[in-house]
């Protein structure tokens, strides 16, 4: 036990030392810069455009303070009531370096502490997860706990703002939603039909109650029924019929030669291809045919089928491996590029430094 603690402390110390060294060489590492920009909006009454239909009236809407409409039609009172805030635009570090070179005490582009800390946290989490490869350890546990908590919360929030508000409350209490959340909503009266999903929704959440879990069966039944209905048609149409229909191909497939007549070689290849395809489909179907014993002829065909399936799985295997590796590559790129600033493929900091930094120069 003590040995393990010791091992970890040593590892951590070495890592910290390396980081300190890295941070102190070259341009340093893991810094995010932002440019502040002031945006301001004025509520202005804009008359209908010349030539507009008789029934068009003037609109009152919020527009950027520097827009033509504001310049023309805004009253002083409206100008004074302007609403404004500053937005932070993330800029590549090289923009900061250039700005600094131009004017050492510029304040337009500044270091963003929240985002810089963010990069560090992200990197630490990444490493904590990887540390699981060595053995299960507290760092991994913490990272896992965080991902569980954050993702659950994330999905709830997104579901609430993107679906519940516009598609449920927006239909049941449009005026309220319009006034407080979605001014853009075109409120066309209350749609009482949406009481049904509301009630179902409540029943679904009821499952959290200690008693009466059966209540949640009703919405569950609805969900199951809908899925079943959707899939029954969808799969027969999209999978069954279409797949069969696109398998109806000639086993002899004459290919026109550019000069006219049939290109023998091409024809043979094309035909062979179709034959193999069809044979495969039929053989595999035979393997998945459960009414007959796999003996004699059927057995042989089924065996061919299993071979096809194995090749299919081999392909899937290859592609899956490929995918996993790509994901790993992406993570390492994050560590090397965004955090350690060792490489600079997207030219965030100026290519000149990228190579030099690795050697630790500049």
């Amino acid at each position, binding site marked *: 036990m003590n040995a393990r603690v010791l091992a970890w402390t040593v590892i951590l110390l070495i890592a910290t030392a390396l980081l300190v060294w890295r941070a102190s060489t070259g341009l340093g590492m893991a810094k995010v810069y932002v440019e502040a920009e002031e945006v301001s909006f004025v509520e202005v009454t804009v008359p209908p455009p010349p030539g507009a239909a008789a029934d068009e009236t003037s609109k009152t809407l919020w527009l950027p303070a520097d827009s033509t409409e504001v310049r023309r039609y805004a009253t002083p009172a409206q100008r004074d009531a302007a609403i404004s805030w500053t937005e932070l635009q993330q800029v590549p570090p090289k923009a900061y370096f250039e700005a600094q070179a131009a004017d050492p005490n510029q304040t337009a582009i500044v270091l963003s502490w929240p985002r810089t800390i963010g990069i560090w946290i992200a990197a630490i*989490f990444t490493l904590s997860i990887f540390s699981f490869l060595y053995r299960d350890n507290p760092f991994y546990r913490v990272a896992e706990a965080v991902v569980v908590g954050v993702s659950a*919360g994330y999905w709830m929030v997104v579901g609430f*703002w993107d679906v519940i508000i516009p598609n449920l409350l927006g239909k049941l209490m449009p005026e309220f939603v319009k006034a407080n959340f979605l001014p*853009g909503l075109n409120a066309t009266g209350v749609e009482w039909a949406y009481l049904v999903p509301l009630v179902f929704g409540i029943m679904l959440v009821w499952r*959290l109650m200690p008693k009466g879990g059966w209540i949640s069966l009703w919405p569950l039944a*609805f969900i199951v029924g*809908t899925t079943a209905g959707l899939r029954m048609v969808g799969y027969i149409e999209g*999978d069954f019929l279409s797949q069969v229909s696109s398998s109806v191909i000639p086993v002899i497939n004459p290919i026109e030669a550019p000069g006219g007549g049939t290109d023998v070689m091409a024809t043979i290849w094309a035909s062979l291809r179709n034959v193999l395809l069809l044979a495969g489909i039929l053989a595999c179907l035979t393997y998945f045919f459960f009414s007959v014993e796999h003996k004699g002829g059927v057995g042989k065909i089924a065996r061919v089928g299993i071979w*096809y399936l194995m090749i299919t799985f081999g392909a899937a295997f290859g592609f899956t491996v490929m995918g996993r590796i790509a994901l*790993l590559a992406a993570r390492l790129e994050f560590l090397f590029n965004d955090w350690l600033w060792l490489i600079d493929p997207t030219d965030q900091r100026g290519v000149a430094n990228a190579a030099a930094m690795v050697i630790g120069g500049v």
Partner: protein
Amino acid sequence: MRRTVPLWITAIAGVALVISAFLPATRGWGEDVATWFSILAAVAFVLGGGNLLKVHLRKISDRQSGWGYSSIVLACFFATLWVGLFKVGVHPNPKYPDVAYSGQTQGIGSPFWWLYEYAFKPLTSTMFAMLAFYVASAAFRAFRAKNVEAVLLLGTAFIILLGRTFAGVVLTGWIPADGAFAGLRLENLSVYVMQVFNTAGNRAIIIGIALGIASTSLKILLGIDRSYLGSGD
């Protein structure tokens, strides 16, 4: 009552969708039912959150092993909810600056965005990146060419792995690209395998699954299959 009502709900909802696929006049039903479904899907997120809360609160209250981690889970959960539901630090929609909550849920620079960008994103993607390592060790210790089947599988895997990278071009570059045997170049071979053998195999699987799903759905709609009700109480 407890059993029959759900069966009816299932049947009606499902049949409405099936019919609406064929009768243009009834297309409206299909759309409404589908919309309600999506609302319930969103509510399910709430349910998920609630379950999480239950499980971890119990762990903490019982001081089960690792209850400390549970408290981290809950802390993150509530932090995310707070900044997300109240759109903390989110600027309103420029079109309606006077409506505080009109801004984008995930407005850049807001705490919610921060949580996503620097906690959620790196953690989830690293979780999956781990698999690259496991697949490697499995390759060394588990994938054996025991029999013809395994040989076929691994052989195909090689073709894909090599053919889908520059290695394929190097290994079989000597085969003339426009000759009769160009098809044997690894990069072409991998395409051929995918489009003939893989397509054949997957077609059969897909057709089978489609039949399976159709018959299961049918059984569910007709109330023959009630397994999903078992998970209620």
